[in-house]
């Protein structure tokens, strides 16, 4: 699990944290994924959570035209140049 996704799950209230971790674990296993396919709401929650982690990967995001590091670097440069807080 990516560090970012782990932080996200760790910040959740206890009940959601436990449920989402279970769903993510199930979704990563073929038999678990097959089970989730019969539970649309659970499958959607698992897919959303896994998607949040997967597409946060800089290499995957870059292939889709998003470079978080560049956005942050531009922001820092602007703040310094213009004396923003």
């Amino acid at each position, binding site marked *: 699990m990516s560090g970012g996704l782990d932080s996200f*799950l760790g*910040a959740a209230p206890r009940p959601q944290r436990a449920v989402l971790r279970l769903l993510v674990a199930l979704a990563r296993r073929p038999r678990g994924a097959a089970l989730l396919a019969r539970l649309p709401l659970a499958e959607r929650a698992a897919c959303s959570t896994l998607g949040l*982690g997967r597409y946060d990967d800089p290499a995957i995001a870059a292939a889709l035209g998003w470079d978080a590091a560049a956005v942050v670097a531009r922001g820092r440069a602007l703040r310094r140049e213009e004396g923003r807080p």
Partner: protein
Amino acid sequence: MSERLDADVCVVGAGAGGAVVAAELAEGGARVVVLDQGPRHDPDDFTARPPEMLARLYRDGGQTATLGTPPILLPLGSGLGGTTLVNSGTCFRTPPHVLERWARDFGLELDEATLRPCFERVERALSVAEVSPELAGANAAVARRGAERLGWSHGYLRRNARGCVGSGVCVFGCPTSAKQHTGITYIPRASAAGARIVTGAEVREVRVEGGRVRGVGARLAHGRRLEVRAPTVVVACGTIHTPSLLERSGLADASGQRGRNLALHPATAAFARMEEVVDMARGVPQSFYIDEFAAEGIMFEGVAGPPAYAAMALPLTGDAHANAMSDYRRLAQFGLMVSDSSRGRVRTIGGRPVIRYDLCAEDVAKFRSGLARMRELFLAAGAREVYLPLPAGLPPARARARDLTLMGFHPLGTARADARASHGVTDGDLALHGVAGLHVADGSVVPSALGVNPQLTIMALATRLAFRLLGAPVPRAAAPSRSRPVPATH
């Protein structure tokens, strides 16, 4: 170990309401202490990466949720700035018809003329201006094209931003500090005027003796305790946490309305796959609105974000999800917000707020109508495919409450203002009925759904409260004066 501070005014919470009250009072000469449970965020730590920022900038990692049908996520900001730190920056004044209703149903003397100087003052302080089409980006252009083809009323939104370059991550921490949230506007002003800002302070109780407020007790890091003695306390913990603090403090609730009347502006969003490259995260995510159906309680507003955000929000699973995400650059997204008639309730169980909210049939009907029109909008704009947030194959007209995937960005009403003590928690001056010196300044006092984003309403009400406490009229000049009288402490 215990620490004690003395102040004229103690403000609990540094979001839309608390920060404004604190700055105006401190600049008016009051000794102000501001307590906030969250941290002070350094923009150098903003990474533009959604999972990490959700964990860091939001309460509960953005996963606070209601119980009820359907469960609704309530993303709430944490830290100096509160939810203004993580909202989209959209600024609407309170609609006149809402003010008329407040006068009629709640006895509130808050007409347009009364609030105008408050709105003007806040808008100046936050550099509120309309987004330009260039900055709005291609995602807004898609919605605009659809609205123009359908002849629907629309426009570019006004936002509290200065020097925005369209980083596309307003809700994950603005990396350019362009968004003028209260953590970088009003809180520095309060601090410069001498206010003491204490972060990491969890206020456990408001202390009241003999019918008047005496101060607050808080917990700090490492088990330290802080007592603030003040003859005036302004509670501004937000709609979800303010009623909990009042309840924890053992304050009487003669109206029986504390924690009730929760409105959320429940919202959802649809995606569309376009022919053209959209790159939805390039530009201001919430820059455009369609208010054609506002009279029906339905408002469309822009929403967008980086791939990780889109993957989380996309209403698909399995191969369909992967396939749509592979074409992320051509995905467009737009949001739908309902001015709700449903009402929920916040209770405190085990020290935590527990939120119950069930979507009523009238609001379900608004979502059915809104989702059908959302599809119409995207098809008119030339979408190849539209992805509605409904179970596969379910047409909007047959959607039930449990089929909807909702979020609520604007909780309001749990300490509602009503001139009558038998009907409201606070009065028209935002003073708690029955307790002298105790005021509330956050979304909880807003007595009904607004149908528009509420931050400006909350800030205007907070401005009015601050000047009432100072015993001075709200100035019309741009520059804040430093020579106003100190607050009355009676």
